[in-house]
């Protein structure tokens, strides 16, 4: 293994390590724009130039590999001059419209200017002008003046999605990013280009002008868009999610996430069931707990055998664990059905057909999926009277519109329909009792992704309205029905649950490399 000396620090690294990575290992930051750890290395921005003893010119640290005995300076006078000059060149025709730029606050150019340049402009002539708002795709806009032509976006579309929409047109300082004729930047991961764009040249249409990034609070979470469970930064301001951003996890999603998942945060803020309701009338939790426990107790007395329960793969493992205990210890039924969203689009990269984040969690908690009836059986059982009381977690069913309508029509036949869900989804009005549950942003928990990887997510903000986590609702009802299930913290459930199951708990996510 080659030994290198970087700024006086001796370090031994793998053969083939670039100077930039070796420097990072030795604890030195080498500023860089075009280099991205997941993409090929064009070495075009020249921000990472470092001095290698014996070399005539400076070397791009992102590209050049270390050799045994190499002596590297990343902070020498020559390097500092080169860094200043590259920033001066980049800023030469840059509009510096930071006050109206969404990237401001998380802009590599701003940060590096402050750290490595911080000098007045020496340009007296006019700046070149380019397109300011170019609709490069349905989710992304392009600003030619801010673009530093690092080609990260092009390489993403070539190397990660393989969709090849982007290229450079023109040359020299007239060059701009464009799509190939007849193409749009509309691949299912297109907004990732805005993530990796080091400046504000590519911006997400959804996030544009919505919130200054320094106001955002960020919570480590997991996307609920499908069973892949991409790790995300859930970024919010005043109890509202402003955007999702992928969080590096080489086991799951690397640096990426899909556009649909990225926009799935909107579900958290639409059509929410915010108050407990009884037959369409709002109640408080005290009132609804009493009513519900009384009604459920009566139903149990009447006919314990006609109880049905719809379990949701949208709920976290902790919620499901309490659901299981509630079903077994309070309701004592074995007529279980599996809810959740119907299958959808899938590809061979991240997007999975299963649009539920926690089917594997259901499997782990309930010891398999064989005991669950499907939607057709659910409808048949309601229509045949095998079920007189239905307790349903979440509003989704894996059914097409017609089947779903059959289900809605059949609901009339029930003596008691209890819905415990985030959303109204036209079912809340039909429910005799509607109990508001909160989303994954408002509580913590664990999802097990398609691959069996258990991934914890954290609470971002307080539950909306009067909603509560599923597990707390089950606890309330159980207590009211004289079968107390007592937990105070999610982690207590988690500990107990992992003792009982064989799912692996996710280790700490790997350290992201400097992006």
């Amino acid at each position, binding site marked *: 293994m080659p030994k290198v000396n970087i700024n006086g620090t001796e370090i031994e690294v793998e053969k083939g390590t670039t100077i930039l990575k070796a420097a990072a290992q030795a604890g030195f930051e080498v500023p860089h724009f075009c280099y991205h750890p997941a993409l090929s290395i064009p070495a075009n921005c020249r921000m990472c130039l470092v001095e290698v003893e014996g070399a005539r010119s*400076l070397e791009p640290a992102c590209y050049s590999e270390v050799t045994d005995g190499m002596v590297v300076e990343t902070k020498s006078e020559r390097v500092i001059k080169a860094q200043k000059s*590259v920033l001066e*060149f980049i800023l030469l025709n840059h509009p510096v419209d930071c006050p109206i730029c969404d990237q401001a606050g998380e802009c590599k150019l701003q940060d590096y200017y402050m750290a490595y340049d911080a000098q007045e402009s020496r340009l*007296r002539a006019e700046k070149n002008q380019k397109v300011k708002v170019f609709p490069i795709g349905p989710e992304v806009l392009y600003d030619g003046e801010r673009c530093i*032509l690092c080609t990260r976006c092009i390489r993403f579309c070539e190397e990660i999605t393989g969709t090849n929409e982007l290229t*450079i047109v023109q040359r*020299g300082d007239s060059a701009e990013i464009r799509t190939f004729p007849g193409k749009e930047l509309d691949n299912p991961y297109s907004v990732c280009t805005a993530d990796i764009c080091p400046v504000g040249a590519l911006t997400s249409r959804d996030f544009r002008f919505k919130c200054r990034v320094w106001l955002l609070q960020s919570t480590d979470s997991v996307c609920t868009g499908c069973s892949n469970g991409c790790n995300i930064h859930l970024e919010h301001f005043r109890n509202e999610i402003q955007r999702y951003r992928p969080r590096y996890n080489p086991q799951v999603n690397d640096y990426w996430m899909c556009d649909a998942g990225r926009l799935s945060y909107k579900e958290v803020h639409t059509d929410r069931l915010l108050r407990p309701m009884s037959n369409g009338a709002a109640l408080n939790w005290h009132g609804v707990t009493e009513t519900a426990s009384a009604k459920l107790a009566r139903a149990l007395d009447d006919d314990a055998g006609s109880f049905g329960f719809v379990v949701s793969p949208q709920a976290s493992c902790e919620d499901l664990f309490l659901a299981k205990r509630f079903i077994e210890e309070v309701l004592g039924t074995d007529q279980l059905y599996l809810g959740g969203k119907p299958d959808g689009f899938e590809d061979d990269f991240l997007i999975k057909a299963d649009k539920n984040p926690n089917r594997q969690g259901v499997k782990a908690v309930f010891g398999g999926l064989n005991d669950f009836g499907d939607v057709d059986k659910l409808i048949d059982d309601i229509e045949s009277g095998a079920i007189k009381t239905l307790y349903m977690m979440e509003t989704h069913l894996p059914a097409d519109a017609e089947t779903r309508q059959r289900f809605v029509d059949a609901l009339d036949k029930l003596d008691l329909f209890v819905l415990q869900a985030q959303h109204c989804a036209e079912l809340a009005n039909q429910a005799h009792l509607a109990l508001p549950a909160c989303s994954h942003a408002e509580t913590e928990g664990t999802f097990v992704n398609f691959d069996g990887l258990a991934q914890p997510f954290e609470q971002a903000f307080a539950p909306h309205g009067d909603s509560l986590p599923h597990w707390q609702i089950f606890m309330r009802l159980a207590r009211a029905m004289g079968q107390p299930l007592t937990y105070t913290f999610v982690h207590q459930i988690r500990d107990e649950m992992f003792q009982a199951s064989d799912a692996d708990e996710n280790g700490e996510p790997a350290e992201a490399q400097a992006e």
Partner: protein
Amino acid sequence: MTEEKSDKTEKSKETTEEAAEEKAEETVEETEQAEKAEEGGEAKAAEEKKAKKSLPKPKAAAKKKPTPRKDEKYLSRNFEIPNAHNLDVYEANGGYRALKKAMKMDGEEIIEEVKKSNLRGRGGAGFPCGIKWSFLPKESDVPKYLVINADEGEPGTFKDRYLMELDPHRHIEGCIIAAWALGIRYCYIFVRGELQFAQRRLNQAIKQAYDAGYLGKNILGQDFDFDIYVHPGAGAYICGEETGLIEGLEGKSGQPRMKPPFPAVVGVFQAPTIVNNVETISSIPFIIENGGQWFADMGIEKNGGPKLYGLSGPVNNPGVYEAPSGITIRELLERYGGGMRDGHELKAFIPGGSSCAVLKPDALDAQMGFETMREAGSSMGTACITFMDTNTCMVRVAARLAHFYHHESCGQCTPCREGSGWAAKVLDSIEAGRGRMEDLDLLLDMCDNIQGNTICALGDSIAIPVRSYLQVFPEEFEDHIKRQSCPYPAWSKRKTSADSDAA
């Protein structure tokens, strides 16, 4: 030295062959003396070297071989023979003899001869051809390629087109010999898009060569297949840079690649590739025919062989001339170019295309060789010399060149993309009378910040000339700034892009 100089000036006015021979002999004598003197004491020699920096002494000049007489032609031998572009005429004048000889030699032998010949790349960088060839891997799972750089786009350079238009078979013969020596299967000749006549001539000659069995399968009855394709460029100067050219060949836009890997290892279509200039390959048949030593003898240390030189500017006989390596620029100007035109006094010259540093007439005695031109403060480049007279505004020239490189920068890397345009803007403003003294330091600093910090050498091609104009003619820049206008009426009367920018 001064004596010698005046002597030479005088002599060069005569154009007889005798005079030329006499002078060449003198040069040899002089060099021998110099060598002896150098043996005397290193310190002294170093001192001498320092003192003569502005006007370098011809060093280690032609060892035995006198400067050939004007009719001793090789590369341009066929230029004046009617229809030499046709196979029969070419063969009647000795064509394809070298190929037949080469195919009796093995590859290693040929590479050795080329190494011995001191043939330097004629595309501008001057890399020793034989050494480049020896870098090509012997064994390869994929076919190896020969790529001919016929993009000839350097301003002031116009030599390769003659070779392609007037003697295409010589070039094809060179390609076949190279392929035979190096185990190459395919060749692309990447011809500058504008040179349509050259493309036609090459295609015609290639067809004739196929028909005669010099190309295609089992060439000359041997187990040797080789195909040549002509690929027209799309009009970008940067496609003359060898890796930009390879990208262009692959159908992409011409953005030079990072090196290493060098094309010899990973070139076109990811395969081992030799990229050579047209003239480099056209020289190969002569090396085979006459031997590497013969070629090396016709030149100076490390620079062998006959060479085409282009002369342009206000000289009496502008054009392309053949002369040995190591000839002085003075001789080229006086003997071949016929001196400056009446009423035009030499002010400056660029020795080998616009990316070389500008020189003053005191460097006229520098020899055309890569090392000797570097010592003279510039570079040999493509050896096509642009002469400029005293009516030429140096600020205007620098601005014009900066505009060229700005226009041709591929835009990949930051310093070249942004620096080229900035330099052009600042030079324009000085030329338009809006300059400030601090702009001169700014320009020099800009050149320092571009040079060496880019992916390809185009960045250096901006920095080196711009810096040289500022350093060789500082007073002219200062004059522009003090007057706040251009003192050259011929230029200021013309509407410049700088003027229209200002409007």
